[in-house]
């Protein structure tokens, strides 16, 4: 699956994302610098990695969401192409309006880096079909601003439309409805705070994140 990993100044999980995509999506992955205006020909998956794009200045993800490449990412999503935003990538997607809601400071105002348990709420999406509904997986988080918020109507829609894909078993950050990851209406854009790309090798502690990539590959 041809993958474009977007690099903003301050991205720091870009290499991790690229390596995971290479390992699990047949090796065809490349970086795309934020000043580009087009995605590489034939891009199937856009991976917006974690990090502190633009040093989190203004709001996390806010400046990156307005960088040149994001127009092309928007068009890709509009056309039904897959977009995966992890951690800062999720923040960028909400700032860009590709996903609803916002990520604010963690409830206790501290950064958390720890493995967390997620419940797979919807195993019928392009990003989760390799899992079983209700399956509990262990994937690490590493963020200071992962507290998901949206107005009541939006939350209601996310829930009734089955767009909450992953839910924290033990909420680490105060997210409404324990939301850890959501998809857009078309089901082709996923944003999640936990890092599936950090959980793809047993040597590093967990392989539970492989399912996200394997789901995409099995499309």
């Amino acid at each position, binding site marked *: 699956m041809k993958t474009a990993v977007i690099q903003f100044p*301050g991205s*720091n999980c870009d290499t991790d994302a690229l390596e995971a995509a290479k390992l699990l999506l047949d090796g065809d992955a490349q970086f795309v610098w934020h000043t580009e205006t087009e995605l590489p020909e034939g891009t199937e998956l856009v991976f917006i990695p974690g990090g*502190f794009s633009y*040093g989190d200045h203004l709001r996390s993800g806010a400046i990156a969401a307005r960088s040149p490449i994001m127009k092309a990412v928007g068009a890709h999503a509009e056309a039904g192409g897959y977009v995966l935003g992890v951690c800062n990538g999720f923040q960028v997607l909400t700032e860009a309006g590709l996903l609803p809601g916002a990520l604010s400071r963690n409830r206790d105002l501290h*950064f958390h*880096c720890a493995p967390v348990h997620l419940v797979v709420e919807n195993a019928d999406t392009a990003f989760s079909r390799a899992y079983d509904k209700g399956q509990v997986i262990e994937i690490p988080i*590493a963020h200071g601003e992962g507290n998901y918020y949206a107005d009541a109507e939006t939350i209601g829609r996310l829930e009734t439309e089955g767009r909450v894909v992953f839910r924290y078993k033990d909420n680490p950050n105060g997210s409404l409805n324990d939301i850890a990851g959501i998809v857009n209406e078309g089901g082709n854009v996923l944003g999640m705070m936990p890092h599936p790309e950090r959980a793809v090798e047993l040597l*590093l502690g967990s392989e539970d994140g492989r399912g996200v990539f394997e789901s995409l590959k099995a499309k």
Partner: protein
Amino acid sequence: MTQPTQHLRDQAATFGLSTEEFDILVERIGREPNALEAAIVGAMWSEHCGYKNSRPLFKAFPTEGPQVLQGPGENAGVIDIGGGYGVAFKMESHNHPSAVEPVQGAATGVGGILRDIFAMGARPFAVLDSLRFGDPESPRTRFLLNGVVDGISHYGNAIGVPTVGGETIFHPSYQENPLVNVMALGLLRHEDLATGTMGEVGNQIIYVGSKTGRDGLGGAVFSSADLSAASQADRPAVQVGDPFMEKLLLEATLEAIQAGLVAGVQDMGAAGLVSSTCEMAYRAGLGISMNLNDVPTRETGMVPMELCLSESQERMILVPVPGKEQELYDLLAKWELDVVNIGQVEDHQNYRLVWDGEVVCDLPVDLLNEAPKYTREGVENPDIIAKREMDLSGVEMPADLGAVLTTLLSHPTIASKKPIFERYDHQVMTNTVVVPGAADAAVMRVRGTQIGVAATSDCNPRFVYLDPYTGAAAAVAEAARNLACVGATPLAITDNLNFGNPHDLGVYYQLQQSVQGIADACRALNTPVTGGNVSLYNQYVEGDQKVAIHPTPTIGMVGVLPDVTRHVGQHIPAGPHSLYLLGELGQGIGASQYLGTVHGLEAGQVPALDLELHRKVIDGTLALIREGLAAAAHDTAEGGLGVAVAEMLLGGTQGAGITLDAPAETRADALLFGETHSSVLVAVPLGRETAAEARLSELGVPCRLLGTVSEESGERLTFALPQHSLNFSVSTAALKQAHSQPLRDILA
């Protein structure tokens, strides 16, 4: 002319120079310096840059070995780890800044050491923090600890280098003067090794990164003086960090080095622009000329003194490969960095600065880099001798040894540091094989190879205080032991020597003895010294009382695992195991955490260190791990064998039955909680005992079976001392509770 010079001489102290040093300067240049020159010399001759009190002692250090690619004298040492890869590593202190402004003090400590690493052409891939604070109950300690953790978290997380280990120790001697020592490791291909040189005549000198402001003014001098209440007024000497700028600088510098565009590179650290360019000129053996009007500034009205000595963060000096200047500019522009040509390398031996068309500094490069050296004959403080010689036979034996065990486990020095590590991103870069707290050392894999790199930082200040020679050697020994316990062969060290004021002969004695102890241990364990950092004047003046920290020569050690899959942690996995002790049983309670925490005494002999035995224990541990005969390994340290066994059980629910069958002449508390240097606990899977014992006997490693770890132990840790007619047990739940909570309570 005499009038102004007399005036300057009287002001020597404000430049960080003694009047004697001022006179040496006048004599060596054969004229009177101007104020700018005096300030530049003061900064370059400060302990922080010039090592005037410590360098003469460093002759003792072994610095060579087949594994050393770059020894002391560069931005960082570099060792060979095989497969064409090298690891650059170094540790540096940010003690004084952290004492007055903990968040930025610690943050810029991380930033500074990372620049040293990528200036070598290495990509930083791990950070360890060695932190020391005073009384954990005091508001000041809480303020400092929370601030330092926030600072490290803020900087390290944003720049995307994992914080994978370190230590956090609490001791009253650090109450006013905390220690923040940051160690960083970077990975490079051998061919990308860069150095801090000006190269050849005609080369351009490029300034890249943040603009220069008034922050951090005189930091090198500030950190080379005692702290006092007045130090709060030195807050402007503390720099402010911007990890985003550093991230850009890191990527740009590495890209430029890998593209072959850089002839020399160095970060602007202590004493800023001056020290970086002075040192680079010295290494090239050439003179330079720079125009200060070209230095990018963030404030208006800055004068040469400020431009030279500002310690604004995130700035580098690059020297382009001749002919590649434009390529380098273009590459740096991609990263949206400020880039200015501020000078050139010239065919003379002087350090020349120009301001408004006039030469304002013209001093020999050699003079700046060759600070006067001071040696003294240290004298041990008689109070410390008396404490060491104290007879401990009258120390009462506690009635409830189980309670002693939980008390020790809950001492903040021993208790779980998880609440701290959770605030740091320890997994970014996806190389972290062992997360902090799970093993005696951090383990990272080298992607695309079988190789693993392990790192640790260690120093037991009680040992060094009571016996600086043995204590410092023991810090090296402990670091090597910790690496062995994850399956890594120790390769080399960096040291961070934190001491009080070296003009105090008692402090100087500690420094002298410590350096010798480190040197001897490094020689015996084949771990050369590749670099280091010295932080003196760690003492606080209160009225007419001077309170020095406990001498703390922190050792940062790096090792290699030829096959990273052959590593173990300190927690015994589920299933039955036999627990072995390799090395020695505790014989005394002298200098132990137990004696301090339970009896309020800091006294007694530091246990003798047998380096021959130590090597054997390390070899035995490595053999068992690499041959699949060990499922977990853990060294004994603070709290002795009792605490070490308990810590090995904290990963699961299994209990253990331990028998210490030793003669009753040795006190039970010494066997349980006495501290030793050459002891490692190894869990051998049930059924592999014969093979493990045979291997250890082949290697000549003394060992003894302590007992078994299994579900049959009923989730309790039981100790039996038959010759002492003693028996006690504690539930694993109680051990966990004691260990997990204390730091959560201290961290806000």
